[in-house]
């Protein structure tokens, strides 16, 4: 089963996709955030691995990006998820252990909480830091 | 006691003797190090050492005080003070600071200069006893690039 047939069963918006142009063979914006669990499960069955999880502050919302890739031959799938600033997202830790640190990093920088991840913590920034530095509204203190 | 025990002993004795023989052979090789303050390494012509301003044939600074290097410096190590003399439209350089304590020797200022007026010298011994000594000014920009 190819990735396109997998993705067909989800409610999504197809974004511009071209490996030559932006490095993603497929990019899809999921409309329902709980779909990410089912999708990850299906992709893992197809021997994809989770390359990274990251996010972009789009000013009104946060866009999460899950990048999956295949080990045998490059087939990079970017799955996007638009969420509100204080919205929770289901964690992928049941499928990929690496999601633990990837999600912690996103939480650290964007304040996105991943439900189901027991180790969510400030990974890189110091403990007790306030605010989430990669949000556009965050300003560094002047020294 | 089984075969793997004696096998291990056998491998152990062999590898240990091999290792000892090889290491003693290196004892008589020529050392590759240099005795630094007495001997010095050849420095490549492209080496990016301390910053200096270039001069043209008449000995005047080539700099046109455009400020590109100041703008592009990722570390903020370059500071430029310009004056516009009366009756002239062109800006002139009145003071030029390079803080070698901040400089990351990346070469972007040299790349970006439109008139090729700034360059890296091959001087790498820029240590100073005081932090002030690391700040190069127009009058000592030549000091560290003998």
């Amino acid at each position, binding site marked *: 089963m190819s990735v396109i047939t997998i993705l067909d069963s989800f409610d999504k918006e197809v974004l*511009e996709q071209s490996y030559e*142009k*932006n*490095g*993603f063979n497929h990019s899809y914006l999921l409309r329902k955030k709980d779909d990410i669990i089912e999708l990850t499960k299906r992709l*893992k069955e197809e*021997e994809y*691995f989770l*390359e*990274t999880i*990251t996010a*972009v*502050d789009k000013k009104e919302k946060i866009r999460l*990006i899950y*990048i999956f890739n295949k*080990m*045998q*031959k*490059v087939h*990079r799938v*970017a799955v996007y998820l638009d969420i509100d600033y204080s919205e929770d997202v289901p964690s992928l830790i049941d499928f*990929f*252990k*690496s999601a*633990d*640190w*990837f999600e912690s990093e996103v939480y650290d*920088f964007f304040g996105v909480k991943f439900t189901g991840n027991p180790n969510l913590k*400030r*990974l*890189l*920034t*110091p403990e007790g830091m306030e605010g989430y*530095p*990669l949000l556009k509204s965050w300003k*560094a203190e002047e020294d | 006691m089984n075969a793997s025990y004696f096998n*291990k002993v056998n*491998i152990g004795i062999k*590898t*240990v003797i*091999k*290792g000892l023989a*090889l*290491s003693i052979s*290196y004892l008589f090789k020529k050392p*590759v190090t240099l005795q630094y303050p007495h001997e010095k390494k050849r420095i*490549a012509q*492209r*080496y*990016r050492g301390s910053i200096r301003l270039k001069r043209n044939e008449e000995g005047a600074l080539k700099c046109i005080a455009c400020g590109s290097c100041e703008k*592009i410096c*990722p570390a903020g190590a370059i500071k430029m003070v310009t004056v516009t003399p009366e009756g002239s439209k062109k800006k002139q350089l009145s003071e030029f600071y390079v803080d070698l304590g901040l400089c*990351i*020797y*990346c*070469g*972007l200022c040299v*790349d*970006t200069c439109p008139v090729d007026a700034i360059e*890296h010298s091959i001087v790498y011994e820029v240590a100073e006893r005081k932090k002030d000594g690391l700040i190069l000014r127009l009058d000592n920009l030549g000091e560290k690039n003998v």
Partner: protein
Amino acid sequence: MDTEKHVLKDFYVNMGPQHPSTHGVLRIVLKVDGEKVMSSETVLGYAHRGVEKMAESKTYIQMMPVMDRFDYVSSMLFEWAYVGCMEKALGITPPERAEYIRVIMAELNRIASHLLWAGAFLLDLGAFTPFLWLFDARERIMDMFEEVTGQRMTNNYFKIGGVADDLTPEFFKMLDEFLNMIRKRMADTETLIESIIFLERVKDIGFISKEDVINYSLTGPVARGSGVNYDLRKNEPYSIYTRFDFEIPLGEKGDCYDRYKVRMREVIQSVRIIEQAVSAIPEGPFAEKAPKIVKLPEGEYYFAVETSRGLLGVYLVSDGSANPYRFKLRDPAFSNLSILDTMLPGNKISDVVAILGSIDVVIPEIDR
């Protein structure tokens, strides 16, 4: 004295942030029972500099030197990922000669990185001599870098559309000398260190299964040590890697010894690539003309290269201005290190340094 308080319940050892063998400022909190590790927790962030935030206020060109400072032992591979990403966005293809120069420099850098790793790994195990033998070889690479790029470590050599400067005749002379000595030196080093002591120390510890490679998103020699054939130079060929004949060394069991062996064999494969590239390098310009002020078209771009540690992805989001809107590094050592906590329990304290060493981490790259 309050004896209640002094009953020894859990004995914690803080390895790091200042410790000779955590390779920088990594901290591992070990709960030990005698010599045995019961559990461990990796603490990151001691070298966090907020580069991803900093990138938002720097121009694309100003970020170039910063790329050198993540993984300072294989800096040009990091430059390549960033430059490649921008070239993808701008639609620039570097000229032939530039591609060859890039491959030569990148492979030299990979060798340098592996040599440093091997030396440091052996130093962790207590062998000092091979460290300096390999450093002699690495020093020659550094001299070549100095000759061509002007700097020994933070090279800032890759530019959009090519490289900063052409190779010099002196460089080829030095390269020749290096290629002549490296095979012998590698063989000598392997003979010296593969004594029974070393084999006992690294064999059959720190297993990583093939499932865990997928599970923890491991890449690079760590994945290949477990027998997973994943190398971007073959699986996602970028630049001109399809033209070269080289093998991807694979391990079998996935223990520390396999990871060590994979890296040592990779050095020889890199030497092969360099030899082929040097004999095939064409004449021509070393750089395409590139815009002085770089502005990427609006959109997002992702480009990945194989560094000496694994898959490095640069993810750039541009809003059309001169500064990146979002700059993200998917660095290999970050996910490679995440498996450490599951590998350590049950091993001895001495194994901790061997296992950590075999993963090969450079902390500024992880902490960013």
